[in-house]
């Protein structure tokens, strides 16, 4: 490792330039835009204009409520499922490991639009394969798109399908980096597999789980494509409207950049708060 400022910055410049133009400036800019009235030309500084509207806007609280609901249910369920996948894929007893890995990891390469289209067809009321299968085993059809609860469930199912394998890959890599002899010693001491999981795997994997949780929370916080395409613009009647969708609607349909920026900063604030809480919860004991 050598101390060479000029050389180092020569390698870093292109990257930092892109970063400055397309990230640093926008971060500052959207903060400032959130304090401006942007529906009149020229924009004027009006500190309470967007933020005042935000705290009294039922559409905002509806989107916030939906986003947090998805966050609270879907993220823990998905991480638990990903954990289960990773543990089972890691089992030495598993045969045809490649096939199982393919099944769980394949959704990682599937684009949002492609899978949204498939889920829409699969869950349609009268001709969707899911309702047909439910019917064939004697269960009633579910109207996934006209009622809020099933529509929310559908969004969560879709996101979980798409991202559980992604998290399983990260968790699996984390598990495989735990030294084998820890488990061997535990097995010699007749510690059951279940106890090994709770007393060895989970604690050692904590940083990786936190990493997955943070990435998933940031992703779900911005959830846009699934309610945009699957439940058609946050339907039924705003029942699956998310903050991401509200931002899109305000910013790019109504071209109200100021209000959309306030929504964006709310998302950022929430993301940072949740991340800090998680870091605090999982801090190393002194």
């Amino acid at each position, binding site marked *: *490792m050598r*101390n*060479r*400022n000029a*050389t180092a910055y020569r*390698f870093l410049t*292109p*990257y*930092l330039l*892109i*970063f400055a133009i*397309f*990230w640093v*400036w*926008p*971060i500052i800019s*959207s903060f400032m*835009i959130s304090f401006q009235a942007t529906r009149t030309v020229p924009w004027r500084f009006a500190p309470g204009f967007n933020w005042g509207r935000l705290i009294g806007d039922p559409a905002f609280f509806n989107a916030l409520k939906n986003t947090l609901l998805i966050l609270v249910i879907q993220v823990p369920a998905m991480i638990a499922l990903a954990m289960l996948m990773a543990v*089972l894929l890691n*089992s030495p007893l598993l045969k045809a490991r490649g096939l199982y*890995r*393919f*099944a*769980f*990891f*394949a*959704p*990682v*390469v*599937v684009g*949002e*639009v*492609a899978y*949204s*289209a*498939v889920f829409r*067809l*699969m869950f349609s009321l*009268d001709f969707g394969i899911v309702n*047909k299968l439910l019917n*064939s085993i004697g269960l009633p059809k579910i109207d996934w798109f006209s009622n809020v609860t099933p529509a929310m469930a559908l969004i969560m199912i879709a996101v979980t399908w798409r991202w559980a394998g992604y998290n399983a*890959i*990260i968790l*699996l890599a*984390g598990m495989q*980096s735990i030294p084998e002899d820890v488990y061997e010693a535990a097995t010699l001491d007749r510690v059951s597999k279940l106890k090994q999981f709770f007393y060895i795997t989970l604690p050692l994997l904590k940083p990786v789980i936190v*990493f997955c949780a*943070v990435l998933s929370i940031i992703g779900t916080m*911005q959830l846009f494509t699934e309610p945009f*395409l699957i439940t058609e613009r946050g339907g039924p009647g705003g029942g699956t409207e998310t*903050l*991401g969708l509200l*931002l899109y609607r305000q*910013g*790019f349909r109504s071209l109200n950049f100021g209000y*959309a920026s306030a929504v*964006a*900063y709310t*998302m950022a604030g929430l993301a*940072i708060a949740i991340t800090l809480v998680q870091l605090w919860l999982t801090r190393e004991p002194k």
Partner: protein
Amino acid sequence: MSSLASARLKRSIALHLFLTPLALIWLFPLWMMVVFSTMPDNGIFSPGIELLPHGNFIDNFNNLQRDTDFVGAIVISVCVAVTYTFLSVMLTSMAGWALARYQFVGKGVVVAIILGTITLPYAVVLIPQFIMVARDFKLANTWVALIVPPLFNSLGVLFMRQSFSMMPDDLFDAARVEGVKEWRIYVFIALPLARPMLAALCIILFLASWNNYLWPLLINSQPGSMTAPVALGTLIGLTKVSWGGIMAGAVMLTVPMLIVFVLLQRHFIAGIAAGAVK
């Protein structure tokens, strides 16, 4: 010992009995994507349960091409993804190299900022990026707009930094003693050594560009400048549209990536898992 062996067998059977249905459920949407793409529209919207492919893919593809210029959109998507991957690998590997191999003023700050952006929602930069690219630079509906703004990525740089910092020092020091310039050391010694990691990075970046939806949806909304996912997305929700065609498009977006995934699984997984092992 035989009771131990039979216990193992029981555990193994239980494992497979649990995992197989789960794997089938997980594969089901992909399988149905293929099935739908080969069915005529009146077959998709019929009361029967169809779980096997038919022979209608070409007709569906023609319907799709009638609804939107999907082939043109695919060409744009491929060109953009290739260019983006090349540029992004260059930028991120150079930055990763600098962070891994040199000590310099401000290094801690740079690393902290990169780490910080991981937890920052993209939504915060979206609106100013759009205003800047569309209004100030007047670049909406161009390839540049699709390629350049997404070039910044934080996980890729951290991945390359980790890859370069694992290489032994003496390798580079020997070259330095010979008077080899730093950029030559990077290009001719470090990059070839990092080939597996670069492959992983390429795949992840290509995939990210190929599947990117929100930014291309906003910035390249004119027909004729849309990427393939955006073009396909415009059809979802229309009333008079061929769903068999939409599924044919979904298959064309997905199956090539699945093949790449199967062939290069190791690199793929290395790229995604990079965040886990520090």
